[in-house]
């Protein structure tokens, strides 16, 4: 057992932390939220240069063969900064799917481009009824000669508006769920941003007679279910890492505020009720943080982590909301404003809740996994 980070990991965290503090303070985050792109292409390039985008990929695809835990560190720091960027969609969701199930050609072609920052991607899985289940994916990919034709609507596709390519989950008759690589600029595709509390790039994507060449299936027809479930679990862990980082930032910001803000002649952090709020927030964070790395280690060690991924994400869904809500309450008026930084977290906590599965979805999934591991 070794619960310390390597010195490389400490350095990585340090680099990410300093980069984001310098390049994207909270005021800049708020500016980016207001833009149509919702991210900074310039900072995206810098992230590529720093090697973060290819971190998880093998060397032969321009990557650094980093551990999953390295990406968790980056995500945690991104969460502290609530930094808007398409790393999650492009690298953690789509990059991992390609790496997991893509053909050699696809890997060669796409991973390098992702690593160098020239390819942004988005994963289109959910549909109009808002189901998280793979059985909720109804969109057909109709075979038509050497092509598939896509018609229908995908919802809540993160970063579709800035993507070059999409991975679309659709059903091929007699084969089942499949993942198709689609050019986001296809004329049959209409992408519209949905206004959400997270002020992020959540999109509606409408497909009208979009033709996809058969070689643009990731892997082979019908293997979509297996890949999606695995990558969704991994992505849930990575999203949880971001949320853990956000909890930490909420706590640090609020401690500072509670020490400095005075009422009735003493810092509000001296009032016992505020102290107990903060104790509960720290408890929520410390338990979450340590469990995060427990689960991240399972990923790196190749263990089955699907139950734990659900436990972790459900835990963070609740804890991030709890921590950010209490943080706002302790801040008082300023906490409720667009000017105050803490409101950012309160809004993001709510949008993070829905990404990669809400709490009820993960509770159910967790119990299913526990039951199959413990038959009567």
């Amino acid at each position: 057992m070794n619960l310390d980070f390597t010195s490389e990991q400490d350095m990585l965290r340090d680099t990410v932390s300093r980069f984001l503090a310098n390049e994207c303070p909270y005021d800049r985050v708020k500016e980016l939220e207001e833009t149509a792109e919702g991210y900074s292409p310039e900072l995206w390039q810098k992230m590529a240069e720093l090697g973060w985008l290819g971190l998880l990929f093998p060397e032969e695809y321009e990557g650094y063969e980093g551990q999953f835990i390295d990406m968790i560190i980056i995500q945690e720091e991104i969460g502290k900064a609530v930094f808007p960027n398409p790393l999650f969609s492009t690298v953690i969701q789509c990059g991992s799917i390609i790496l997991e199930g893509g053909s050699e050609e696809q890997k060669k072609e796409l991973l390098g481009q992702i690593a160098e920052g020239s390819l942004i991607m988005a994963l289109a899985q959910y549909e109009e009824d808002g189901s998280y289940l793979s059985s909720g994916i109804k969109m057909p990919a109709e075979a038509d000669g050497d092509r598939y034709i896509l018609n229908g609507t995908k919802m809540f596709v993160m970063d579709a508006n800035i993507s070059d390519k999409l991975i679309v989950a659709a059903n091929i008759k007699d084969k089942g769920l499949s993942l198709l690589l689609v050019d986001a600029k296809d004329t049959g595709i209409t992408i519209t941003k949905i206004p959400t509390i997270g002020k992020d790039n959540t999109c509606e994507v409408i497909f009208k007679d979009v033709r996809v060449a058969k070689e643009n299936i990731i892997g082979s027809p019908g293997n979509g279910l297996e890949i999606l479930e695995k990558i969704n679990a991994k992505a849930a862990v990575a999203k949880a890492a971001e949320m853990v980082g956000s909890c930490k930032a909420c706590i640090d910001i609020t401690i500072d505020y509670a020490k400095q803000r005075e009422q009735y002649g003493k810092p509000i952090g001296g009032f016992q009720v505020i102290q107990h709020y903060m104790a509960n927030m720290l408890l929520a964070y410390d338990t979450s943080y340590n469990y995060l790395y427990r689960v991240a280690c399972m990923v790196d060690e190749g263990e089955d982590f699907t139950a734990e991924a659900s436990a972790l994400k459900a835990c963070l869904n609740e804890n991030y909301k709890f921590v950010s809500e209490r943080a706002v309450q302790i801040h008082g008026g300023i906490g409720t404003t667009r000017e105050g930084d803490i409101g950012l977290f309160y809004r993001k906590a709510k949008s993070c809740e829905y990404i990669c599965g809400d709490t009820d979805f993960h509770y159910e999934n967790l119990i299913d996994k526990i039951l199959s591991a413990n038959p009567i």
Partner: protein
Amino acid sequence: MDFKLSEEQQALKQEFEDFFKREMENAPLDYQNRSPLEAMYGSDEGWEFHKSMKKKLAEKGWLTMAWPKEYGGREAPVIEQLIFSEVQSYYRAPGLDGFGVKMFAPTLMLYATDEQKERLLPPIAKGEVQYCQGWSEPNAGSDLASLKTVAIKEGDHYVINGQKVWTTAAHRADHIFLLARTNPSQKRSSGLSVFNIEMNTPGIEVRPIEYMNGVHIYNEIYFTDVKVPVEERIGPENEGWKLTRATMNFERSGVGSFAEARRSFEELLKYVQTTKRDGKALIENQIVRQKLAKLYIGIETGRALAYKTAWLQEKGSLTFSAAAASEGKVFGTELRQQVANFATEIMGLYGQVEHSKWAHLNGVMIDGYQMSPGSNIAAGSSEIQRNIIAWVGCGLPRFN
């Protein structure tokens, strides 16, 4: 004991119902996808509608129903006020400038000169003016008595310098009633006075505070050498603190929170009955059912408390109703927070969507999710309310 409304009360309730139902059919969209507070002060269209409603309520005599007869009111019993509040809140209807009608007017009735009363009360009663309340300051929130804005007497006027914050509707208001320090050598609740000031007086600068969802309700107000004639001081100089305690027998049960929550509950109920996910209506989900059950219980028990509060207030039992007003406030705002939490959880991925063509229930639930922390903080934070409940309701010793 019985909870039945008398025939007159029933008729009155019906009149309120008919009126608000009819009028709100013409309300701008903002009143369907936002809280009334946001709709009233946050958009021009909403503000115009509020003003027109204010006139209509004034014509019906409903603005001033609780006022003493000598000031043109009809001294309506607290229960009638309660019925009014309940119906108005249920319909999310604007039209009441609470700052003028419920807060400043009683101060005037108690402490103003005859000249001031004649000049200031009729426009409030007729719904012609909008007030805002100049109390909180950057370093005087929960601890109001530490305020620093000064009003120094110079001949026939006062010169005001300082800053107010969290001033709801200041950008819409015609007047502000301001609490400022007229004797800077006195501390805390001593040496304060109250002023009536026109918002267009030179030296007053209103700066918007953007709420987290971008809506403009709150403001900062900067006072730089603002000259206010001595006649605009209400009540004795340096005795302003006691004016902040001026109150009348307005219902303060917090029933509006429960009526608003009931409206949301009904919308949510219809939603889960008619919305399917994974092939099943949401109402078949046991977790959804439990959340609805909890909300129903919160709404009905809170409402029962509000009725009792109004009843005892009517009968002059002020000790109970002082703690009960705090109970109603904290229970009501936290209940609305729970409504917003549960609703946005039940809605799944759609829970995050703000008003747009994709939004379910017009996005009003995620709006509530953003407004609810403000409600837990404004007008006495939940912490202050719980302190009061413990001190007044339980008789526990004050710390500090």
